[in-house]
């Protein structure tokens, strides 16, 4: 009998996952290069109760991130780079592993290396010659970096077969996994210097998604109250 109460509880958990995802999206509405989360749902097994199929609720599935491009914001900062098209910058994390990011707000560290805001170096590394004024750095659309007229390296853009399989590791960084496939050079994407890609979170649709999830959550919790009432009524049979 209490199948329904568990189905409703599973529904609440699914809606909670949606609420969490939307909350995270809304919190990142101003994070450069952020992509909103893509969450799927599926129904659970069906079993016969008095000959009628009854389902066991719903469960969320993490499908990675959406792919829609964020709008490009001109900043005029020579070390701000936006990727136009698919792909990621490749950086090295402090623990030595390689990560991917679309956040192109770079800066120069104490050694003259081009690093992300959180200090990860580009892969392959690009180091400005001593005494270079960062404002004289030019980055071509194919990633070629020039400082003071001399070529000093090339920023590579990589992509994976299944971007949905990337593992978010925080700081706007992603790690390649077995389900995403290994990073390889991206095709057809270009860089734009002096611009950053803004978050692709659309506040209006995030808000409607949130309301939808909240209502779904409420409905499911009403269902639990009703199921509880049913159990209570059954208990009242014996006095």
């Amino acid at each position, binding site marked *: 009998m209490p199948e329904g109460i568990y189905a409703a509880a599973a529904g609440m958990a699914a809606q909670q996952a949606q609420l969490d995802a939307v909350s995270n999206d809304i919190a990142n509405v101003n994070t450069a290069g952020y992509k909103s989360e893509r969450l799927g*749902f599926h129904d659970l097994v069906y079993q016969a109760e008095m000959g*009628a199929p009854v389902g066991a609720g719903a469960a969320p599935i993490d499908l990675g991130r959406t792919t829609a491009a964020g709008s490009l914001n001109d900043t005029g900062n020579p070390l701000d780079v936006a990727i136009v098209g698919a792909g990621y910058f490749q950086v090295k994390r402090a623990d030595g592993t390689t990560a991917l990011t679309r956040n192109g707000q770079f800066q120069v560290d104490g050694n003259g290396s081009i690093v992300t805001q959180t200090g990860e170096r580009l892969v392959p590394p690009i180091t400005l010659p001593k005494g270079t004024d960062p404002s004289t750095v030019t980055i071509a659309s194919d990633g070629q970096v020039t400082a003071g007229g001399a070529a000093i390296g090339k920023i590579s853009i990589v992509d994976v*077969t299944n971007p949905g399989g990337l593992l978010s590791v925080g700081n706007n960084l992603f790690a390649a996994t077995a389900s995403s496939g290994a990073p390889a050079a991206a095709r057809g994407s270009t860089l734009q210097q002096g611009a950053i890609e803004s978050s692709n979170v659309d506040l209006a649709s995030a808000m409607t998604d949130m309301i939808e999830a909240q209502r*779904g959550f409420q409905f499911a919790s009403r269902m639990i109250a009703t199921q509880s009432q049913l159990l209570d009524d059954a208990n009242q049979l014996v006095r």
Partner: protein
Amino acid sequence: MLTELVRQDQLANDLANASTPGYKTDRSAQSTFGELLLSNSATAQPIGSLGLGVQIAETKTDMSQGPVKQTGEPLDVALQGPGFLVVKTATGTAYTRDGQLAVDANGGLMTSTGLPVLDAQGAPINVAGHASDLQIAPDGTIRGGGKTLGKLAIASLTTPSKLGDNLFTGTAGAAPAGTTVQQGALESSDIDAARVMVDMITSLRAYESSQRVIHSIDETLSRGIDSAGGMS
């Protein structure tokens, strides 16, 4: 009371799937058990009929079209019309209307639960390298980078029944006329929350009435026993 419990469980499942793409509502119809004709055992005079309560006659899945929601994702497709996408499971072929697709590490097109999506020849579709620039035409043809990569199979399904994981099984037929594929959109669950709430309340009250009836019968029996005992 028991049939109302089953109905409540189905309603709970419907509400739990309020956000499941391509979910279809279950509805159960009730029918009475065959009635018994009571007659006096000594004189054979008929007394009247006695009902034995209700049973669930059948559960129908309401296959009406759910609202289509724009997502802008290249791997989201919504089916407009009565068809189904064809997917391969460990035990054979199954059908789904959940168009929230994904790509595996080798570029194979799959459902959100990881099952390969098939083309009309029953072969998996590979879209390696085009996960973000896929174009899916209304007839299901998939193009990427100017090349045709495959075509989604669309099948009709008679007597669909649910398997879980957004899958259906049934007798498959040729693509139904007028079913189109819309890229960048998802078919939402077709549950009507207001209707489910009303059904839930109605069913709860019916359940409670049955409970009262059981009580009355209990009391009648109790009084019968008491008075029968008092006579001796």
